[in-house]
């Protein structure tokens, strides 16, 4: 059970959170401008790296906020957490 630093509430156990998948997967402001291949990529394709991973978590049983976490997917160690809209550290 990870200890996840919520930028709003501080470190809390993983069971308070819902995982939100890879971060910075941008949904186009106007999806009509994206071609079919691009939309398929947006829907289904992910980086899935071993190592640094930017991912979204929601403090579902806490403040309810989504935020981003930079975690190493090999060691599970968390390097940073930051708010939605903030630049990836």
């Amino acid at each position, binding site marked *: 059970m990870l200890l996840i630093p919520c930028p709003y509430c501080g470190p809390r156990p993983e069971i308070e959170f819902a995982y939100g998948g890879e971060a910075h997967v941008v949904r186009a402001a106007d999806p009509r401008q994206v071609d079919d291949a691009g939309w398929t990529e947006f829907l289904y394709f992910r980086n899935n790296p071993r190592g640094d991973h930017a991912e979204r978590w929601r403090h579902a049983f806490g403040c309810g906020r989504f935020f981003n976490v930079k975690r190493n997917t090999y060691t*599970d160690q968390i390097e940073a957490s930051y708010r939605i809209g903030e630049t990836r550290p």
Partner: protein
Amino acid sequence: MQRYSALALLKQTLQNHKGWQPQWRDPEPKRAYDAIIIGGGGHGLGAAYYLARKHGIRNVAVLEKGWIGGGNTGRNTTIIRSNYLFDESAALYDHALDLWEGLSQELNYNVMFSQRGVLMIAHNVHDEQSFKRHVYSNRLNGVDNAWLTPEQAKAFCPPLNIAPGMRHAVTGAALQRRAGTARHDAVAWGYARAADALGVDIIQNCEVTGIDRDASGRVTGVQTTRGAIASRKVGVSAAGSTSLVMEMAGLRMPLESYPLQALVSEPLKPIFPCVVMSNTIHAYISQSDKGELVIGAGTDAYVSYSQRGALHIATHTLEAICELFPIFRRMRMMRNWGGIVDVTPDRSPILGKTPVPGLYVNCGWGTGGFKATPGAADLFAHTIARDDPHPINAPFNLERFGAGRLIDEAAAAAVAH
């Protein structure tokens, strides 16, 4: 190949078993092969075997970064079944089940395929609707699957708690009698030995670090920790690490890798005669030939390559096991471990060609790859040999995501009212 039999055992006994030969060689990699398989699990070793046996391509190398069978082949709960809903899936897994039934004899290696029956427990009206849809679809597809009342389920599996007052009472069950378990390590070793005997080089401790392509984009070989190896056909069968290998060829995949954990109890005398699965309360259990209760948990919530699961996931699984089987509450967890499963958006595998000529992929089996081992290996070999998928694996292509032709077994069983 040195034949295995009771007589051979007897002969060896007379010389204190000093005449047994290595089950596979430990060769140095050659400079070039007709085909390379990346990943020495059951799927990869099996593909090499079928390439050699059915397609006459014997100049094949299996490259394994660690030890063969050390990935999900050696980490799963060994459940084998084919009672999938969609026609495409049923055909795929039933092809595997057909091969399982003769595998020990085919490989001359006892993989201990035990057709103990898999019982899938229904706990509510929605489960019943979903399982009956499976049962009907399976029967018309020629896949055995029968609907049982709670009493019939209890008769088939006496430790099952069917008390009506349970929090999630058992309302029925779907039973596939041909389904069961097998000895996972033996599958890898059996394929390795048989493939080796046909000339396949099994190269362990050989990690692929790059995939070479020519100007046209076609695959020409791989870079490894043991040097460059040329080949115009490269099959990737690296469950858990598929995204990492495919990235070497510049391909992004519709995959995410999640930890999946399992555990066993201390060994017990025979008490559990079959396999029981409950998707609703997340419990999967059988008893191994050694007597251990083998229990599978759900995947962890987040992407990870750490090969370990969280305590609260194991805890939830054991809560469910103790509800369904309160006689096991005093039994003790002896060993717990984790694997990495790669999961596709529709929870069905990808088995076929890729946009890179000469590069083939077999991945995305999620939590269910072991049961498909012989079938997937056979079809992967066919696809590599012919540069064209077999009709059974044709629907499991990479293009289906763009075309919206998902084979969504998970969504089909989704719960909502």
